[in-house]
């Protein structure tokens, strides 16, 4: 039994596809645009168009719908919760009533739309992380933030922190797994009892984990010092980003589709 073994959220799946090859900056801006687009629609037509776009993009990325859906499993609870809240707490014409609780047709609509919206948001965001390696993602963000350097934003440092954090997620998951097993072997009960008891039971896992994290941070700092790391000033890249016409064209298409879907829906509603 591997305790923490779910491939999910934020995982990179290497493949050879046009989306994998695209410039990370193009993908980041596109993802932001697509998510904005998802929040601008409020009618079935808009939602179905975005679902169509999502299917098209996941085909193009060779990731496939089943894999995409697996990545939303961790947030499914949140999405279900949103749906339920909306169904019960939206005022309108009641369809069914019992005491203070009532279900309205508006509520059902809102419930479906809000959960669809969240689902699409997570899926578009995951499409970005599934097709972009953590390094490329961090470098892309650095590059996009670099104009703000002039007003004092430490773009390079932010990107470096992101890279390091992402790099250590799998390592720390392994460490956690190992320490959990070690404490289980000493008779710890990690999955019984109420919330407070479980939290308390986790102390023997969390303290060693903290010690390890600080040790690792220290080692990493020494290793970086030893290689004369002094932040971003004057650093060059082994593989500089090249913004090709394909990236430009893709971005234009994404923005056009956001505008068209939003406008079209507004039109039809009138």
């Amino acid at each position: 039994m591997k305790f923490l073994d779910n491939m999910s959220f934020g995982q990179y799946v290497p493949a050879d596809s046009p989306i994998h090859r695209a410039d990370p900056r193009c993908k980041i801006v596109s993802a932001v645009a697509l998510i904005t687009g998802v929040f601008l629609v409020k009618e079935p037509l808009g939602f179905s168009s975005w679902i169509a776009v999502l299917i098209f993009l996941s085909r193009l990325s060779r990731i496939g719908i089943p894999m995409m859906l697996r990545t939303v499993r961790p947030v499914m609870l949140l999405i279900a919760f949103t749906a339920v809240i909306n169904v019960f707490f939206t005022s309108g014409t009641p369809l069914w009533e019992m005491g203070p609780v009532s279900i309205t047709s508006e509520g059902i609509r809102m419930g479906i739309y809000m959960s669809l919206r969240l689902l699409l948001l997570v899926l578009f965001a995951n499409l970005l992380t599934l097709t972009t390696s953590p390094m490329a993602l961090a470098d892309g963000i650095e590059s996009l933030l670099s104009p703000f350097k002039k007003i004092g934003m430490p773009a390079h440092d932010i990107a470096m922190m992101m890279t390091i954090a992402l790099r250590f997620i799998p390592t720390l998951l392994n460490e956690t797994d190992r320490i959990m097993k070690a404490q289980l072997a000493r008779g710890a009960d990690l999955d019984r009892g109420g919330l407070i008891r479980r939290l308390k039971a986790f102390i023997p896992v969390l303290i060693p984990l903290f010690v390890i994290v600080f040790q690792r941070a220290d080692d990493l700092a020494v290793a970086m010092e030893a290689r004369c790391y002094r932040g971003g000033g004057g650093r060059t890249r082994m593989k500089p980003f090249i913004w090709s016409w394909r990236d430009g064209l893709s971005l234009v298409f994404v923005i056009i589709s956001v505008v068209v879907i939003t406008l079209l829906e507004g039109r039809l509603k009138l």
Partner: protein
Amino acid sequence: MSISIKNLTHIYHRGTPLEVAALSDVSLEIPGGSWTSIVGHTGSGKSTLAQHMNALLLPDMGEVVVDDLSVSSKKDLREIRRKVGLVFQYPEQQLFAETVKDELSFGPKNWGMTDNLDDLSEKVLDQVGLDRTYLDRSPFKLSGGEKRRVAIASVLAVSPSYLVLDEPTAGLDASGRGYLLKLLNKINNSGTAVVMVTHDLEIALDMSDRIIALQLGKVAHSGSPRDTVLYMSSNPVPGLLLPSIADLWVKLSKYGMEIPFSCDPSTMAKNIDEKRRGTKK
């Protein structure tokens, strides 16, 4: 009384493209009170096997029975984990308590053994060669070797019948390694079976009653140290190198000098000497 493993198969990442059989069809028997070493190359499945012995991992196929408790019965798992103490690699990393005493009473409290915790802590500390002045110290302020001994003591605190150690000598210097092995030998002599997972064949040959060599998740050979050396000299197991003294013993017998097997240089020298005097007569 023994740990008995029958046709054990363990598969990681079942049903995904990363599926890999870490152990396939492994059968073995670890008698109570014995010292068994499990040797093998990195990735041979030896750590996976160790975790099966106290039911931290459960078999995909096959059976693990400790004394008369089977891991297939869920209600026996806790008792199995008490009977088979498992010391992970770098066990000093699992320390968390404020004092050594709290650290040592963690296991006993989990199993509801709350009588005489002070005496118990003192007793297990003594077993790992530390005195009672350590009881009130912080485990984080001890030296590396002391931390490891406290961690081992914390497993001994629930008086397991079997002590499984995963690479207990990793990262220790020569004197630390020698001292730890001496302690383990003492623990073994007092009746606790020791199962040592290691890739250091020299230690295994020197200390064990029986050696089990794993290769790619299968038992390549199991037998006494002498048999193991004989087997490996004709069937090398990748990643396991015979120590030069064992190699010397094999070469001597090839040249007609048959002497009792030993991995200890002075015993071997004595044996050679006796043999020579014998032939001269």
